[in-house]
């Protein structure tokens, strides 16, 4: 019996090799279908995982309130000095009224140039409190972070982000040296470890980076720089008065986050005539991202399913042609004693061989998604940099993550499709009248 099965398979392969190009093209259809299932799911997973990571890095327990510049229609007629954003009073109110808030950080940040000897580096000056490092999950590499004492005494101390430190101090050890910001000097207390950017907040889509930060006590910032920032724009001066750029609140437990967020929004609404702040709740984003991910998987799966379907139709098409072409052979085999079942098996074996070969090569092709996608992106970067620049950063930098269950799924579907689409031609072959088939030219 095993020998007979072996013969059936051998015969199937032999018949397929009779038309190598035709068989190859049919296999190609299944190959593309199978590989695309793995590819699309891997790309989708890569993108959504990256988005999720960025959101998670904001902290699921956190609520972030940020100052937003109101649109110009609203600010018109307010004069040269534009005053907006969250206030120190807001901070006090939030600090004192909401019991579920475990930590609350006031933050003031601005773009500045930092100098050391003759080197100048652009970066972000961040006035903050000692808890800042903990809440935003920054870690000290060398030296120390800002302390409560620094905050109380308004010391001219600063802590550098890793990337900025290496650019400003390529040769020297930065600790103990003084960094110049405009006319003031700040002594470097420590250097932080590098940290991946987190998701954009306060309505901005761009990821938030921590590479070019210089941290100083917020009291020092208020003291030295104040709230008003002057910018020269097309010949005229413009001044903005912002007390706080951001307040980060850490809620005691995850289950209280959404409720606390509502309280925060209500509190702020009462004291702000115009919407000059935004509230970001990473937990909400996280849940949104999960929904998006599911949609993504369904969508990608649908596209892949369509391409597999096309592959299946290809198989059916070829097998129907083969059956017609081999009508005579079917007649001979029937005359020599083949049952209908034998004929079905013979043709089904051929489609199974086609779809299995397509499935296996498709899985192998699917596993190459990482390197191949990198090559494609690199090629696009070289040929059409403008188009690439328009793509969202998350798509440009996402690395595909192969979803383990997509491999058996893709393979299973491809073989199943082969069988389903092979069954009809095989049955049609078996249903032929042997006398008619023998007469077929």
């Amino acid at each position: 019996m095993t020998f007979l099965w072996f013969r059936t398979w051998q015969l199937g392969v032999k018949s397929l090799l009779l038309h190598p190009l035709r068989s190859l093209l049919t296999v190609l259809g299944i190959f593309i279908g199978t590989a695309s299932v793995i590819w699309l799911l891997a790309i989708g997973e890569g993108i959504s995982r990256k988005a999720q990571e960025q959101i998670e890095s904001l902290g699921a327990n956190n609520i972030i309130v940020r100052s937003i510049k109101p649109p110009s229609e609203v600010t018109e007629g307010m004069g040269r000095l534009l005053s907006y954003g969250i206030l120190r009073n807001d901070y006090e109110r939030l600090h004192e009224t909401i019991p579920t808030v475990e930590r609350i950080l006031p933050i003031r940040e601005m773009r500045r140039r930092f100098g050391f000897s003759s080197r100048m580096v652009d970066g972000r000056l961040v006035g903050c409190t000692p808890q800042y490092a903990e809440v935003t999950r920054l870690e000290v590499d060398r030296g120390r972070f800002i302390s409560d004492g620094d905050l109380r005494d308004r010391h001219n101390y600063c802590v550098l982000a890793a990337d900025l430190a290496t650019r400003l101090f390529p040769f020297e050890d930065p600790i103990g040296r003084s960094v110049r910001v405009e006319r003031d000097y700040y002594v470097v207390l420590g250097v932080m470890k590098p940290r991946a950017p987190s998701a954009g907040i306060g309505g901005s889509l761009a990821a938030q980076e921590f590479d070019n930060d210089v941290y100083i006590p917020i009291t020092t910032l208020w003291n030295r720089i104040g709230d008003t920032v002057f910018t020269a724009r097309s010949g005229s001066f413009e001044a903005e008065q912002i007390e706080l750029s951001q307040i980060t609140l850490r809620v005691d437990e995850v289950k209280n986050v959404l409720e606390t967020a509502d309280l925060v929004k209500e509190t702020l609404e009462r004291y702000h005539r115009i919407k000059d702040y935004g509230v970001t709740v990473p937990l909400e984003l996280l849940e949104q991202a999960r929904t998006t991910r599911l949609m993504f998987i369904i969508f990608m799966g649908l596209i892949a399913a369509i391409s597999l379907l096309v592959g299946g139709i290809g198989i059916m098409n070829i097998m129907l042609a083969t059956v017609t072409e081999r009508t005579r052979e079917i007649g001979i085999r029937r005359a020599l004693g083949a049952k209908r079942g034998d004929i079905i098996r013979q043709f089904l074996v051929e489609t199974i061989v086609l779809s299995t070969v397509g499935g296996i090569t498709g899985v192998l092709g699917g596993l190459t998604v990482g390197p191949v996608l990198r090559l494609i992106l690199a090629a696009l970067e070289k040929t059409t940099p403008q188009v690439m620049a328009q793509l969202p950063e998350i798509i440009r930098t996402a690395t595909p993550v192969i979803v383990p269950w997509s491999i058996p799924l893709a393979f299973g579907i491809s073989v199943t499709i082969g069988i389903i689409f092979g069954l009809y031609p095989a049955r049609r072959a078996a249903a032929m009248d042997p006398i008619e088939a023998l007469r077929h030219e």
Partner: protein
Amino acid sequence: MTSAACVQDVTKEYRMDGGTVRALRGVSLEVPEGDYVAIMGPSGSGKSTLLNLLGCLDRPTSGRIMLGDKDVTRASDDQLSEIRASRIGFVFQSYNLIPQLTVLENIEVPLYYQGRFASDDRRRCLELAEMVGLSDRLKHRPTQLSGGQQQRVAIARSLANDPYFMLADEPTGNLDSVTAAEILELLVELNHNGKTIIMVTHETDIGRQAKRIIQLKDGMILEKE
């Protein structure tokens, strides 16, 4: 003596769009073992229909057909297939070998559909190939052989399952006269060795090679010689 085939008052009707065509109108025939019968008649006489019925490719409308001791009149499609696989050997006018198989594999096909294949089957097929004079062509494909050689392969194939009888449908129709004579000689020789042969032909010269001739006309047997 048992008969290889026994046909009793068989009729066969085909339904066409125009009405019913009566291809056979009551044919009775007995083929004893070791016989060599030529069924002759003009086209439309019903000889192909009779051949199909004897070859278990079709069932009669009425009457009875016995092959050996088996009544095949009302056999199912699968049962007919089994009988074809185990008890009937076909030789066709256009050889009908399977192009993707070698000579030896072609000879083995009927055994394959019997659902068994033992090592002595292989030896038997080699003997058959030798008998028809093709032992040096075992690995060749049908397209690499001449018409006469292909028909020899077909004859070897028809004997692979040790049939009740060999059914030869115009076995020399596609061959030149010299090769045709060789093939007919082979058939006579096989008959001498005890094989039962039923041959369908429309050429009187070829029909004369048989032990007896059955003339068909308009679906009935005219005379028996």
